């Protein structure tokens, strides 16, 4: 009963307009944080702009991205930059990437990009790179070292030898549950680049990594997975403060592995079920994660949204802006040394979210 009540409360809050003007900024800063260390950025992901024909695109997915862009532009103070987390397109073609880029061009300020598998497997990222630049890179911002990886590569044999056409290769990888797909990986070449990039960085410098796939192994059947996750984690292990942000999963997940905090992004297009809702397979959803409410299909934007992240003292606080539910905040907790949801607590003391079937 209380679960039903919770859901109704969420919907009422949504109806009352918990909107961009009342976004939950960090009100409490850590005592040792220098004011100049604190900054925010917006994180938008998985818009899956889908071409129908001519100038027609799937309206539903368009609306998700348009809304995220509009709300991001309303933020005050302005975030320092916007990160787009990958899967801008559905089938990686020029009309989709162009249409997506046009919508993103309305964003005020600098936009960075992460490569998603839906952007990549038609032309192996060629047109995407023309629009957005290199597929992996790093930059420094206010004392934080940011790294962007292309984590959706896979075995060469699958990429180059298995499919008769680029179109079919794209379609095969686009099906999340397609048994003909292939596990994602960062690969030797990029890991070597990462090793060299990190060699120049002090161990006390906070590191923030963006990848499209989780740099951890959750469920291989849906590629909530990176084949060489452990090797990437090992490169990040010597640093004091590491945060990994990833898209692809279209749902809220968070985890802590050693020194590395993981937080995912919601999609602007559609939510995905948690792997545990597939009755026929074992999965390893992080125990820390308190799941989102099950999406209500009658609300087109339910369980989709975008994120506002603030970084203070090199630790992150992620505000999930859900369109039809109360927003959620997952912040690094110095006491537990893990990301923690500010409303939904550890299993023994937590308010469970809506039951999942």
């Amino acid at each position: 009963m209380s679960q039903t009540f919770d859901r109704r409360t969420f919907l009422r809050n949504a109806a009352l307009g918990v909107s961009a003007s009342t976004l939950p900024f960090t009100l409490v800063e850590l005592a040792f944080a220098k004011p100049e260390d604190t900054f925010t950025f917006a994180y938008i992901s998985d818009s899956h702009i889908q071409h129908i024909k001519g100038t027609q695109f799937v309206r539903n997915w368009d609306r998700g991205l348009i809304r995220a862009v509009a709300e991001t532009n309303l933020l005050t103070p302005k975030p320092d930059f916007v990160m787009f987390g990958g899967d801008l397109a559905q089938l990686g073609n020029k009309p989709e990437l162009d249409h997506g880029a046009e919508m993103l061009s309305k964003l005020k300020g600098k936009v960075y990009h992460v490569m998603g598998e839906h952007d990549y497997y038609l032309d192996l990222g060629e047109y995407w790179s023309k629009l957005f630049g290199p597929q992996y890179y790093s930059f420094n911002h206010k004392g934080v070292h940011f790294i962007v990886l292309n984590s959706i590569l896979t075995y060469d044999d699958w990429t180059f030898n298995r499919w008769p056409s680029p179109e079919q290769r794209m379609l095969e990888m686009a099906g999340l549950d397609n048994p003909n797909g292939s596990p994602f990986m960062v690969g030797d070449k990029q890991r070597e680049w990462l090793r060299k990039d990190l060699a120049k960085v002090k161990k006390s410098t906070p590191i923030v990594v963006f990848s499209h796939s989780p740099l951890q192994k959750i469920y291989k059947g849906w590629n909530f997975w990176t084949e060489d996750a452990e090797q990437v984690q090992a490169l990040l292990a010597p640093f004091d403060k590491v945060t990994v942000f990833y898209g692809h999963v279209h749902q809220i997940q968070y985890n802590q592995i050693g020194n590395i905090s993981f937080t995912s992004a919601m999609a602007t297009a559609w939510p995905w079920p948690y792997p545990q809702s597939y009755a026929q397979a074992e999965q390893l959803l992080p125990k820390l994660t308190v799941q989102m409410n099950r999406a209500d299909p009658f609300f087109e934007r339910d369980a989709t949204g975008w994120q506002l992240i603030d970084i203070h003292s090199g630790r992150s606080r992620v505000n999930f802006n859900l369109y039809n539910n109360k927003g959620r905040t997952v912040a690094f907790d110095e006491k537990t040394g893990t990301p923690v949801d500010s409303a939904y607590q550890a299993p023994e003391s937590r308010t469970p979210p809506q039951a999942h079937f």
Partner: protein
Amino acid sequence: MKMIRILAVALMGMAFSSVALADEFTESDLKRWQEQFDGVVKQGRSLWTDGKLGTNGVACAQCHPNAANTHPETYPKFQKQLGKVANLWEMVNWCLRNPLQGQPLEADDAKMTAMLAYIAWERRGVKLEPGKH
């Protein structure tokens, strides 16, 4: 009458002497039924991943990989948005009309049967909880 009684006794004798029961399914029956079912599930899976089912290229599997989050075991159930107790096929039609921007199917359309068979197959082993939300 007497003839029938004798026949019945004879049949019972046969039933007891051999282990097989009178109406046991034959191997070929079982094989055929299973093949029929598997074929329809397979057809359902291909419809589930088919961008041409609706009009906008969106496929069911885009939001429901392995038919997850369809929870067929909870139907029929009250759907507040429809204002009545609904069957799963009505929800499939809701998705065909809305996210897929397509046309609904008749309840007994072979395509609907195939998709419902696929959904049920992916959810096998889960206990029935009709009416549950």
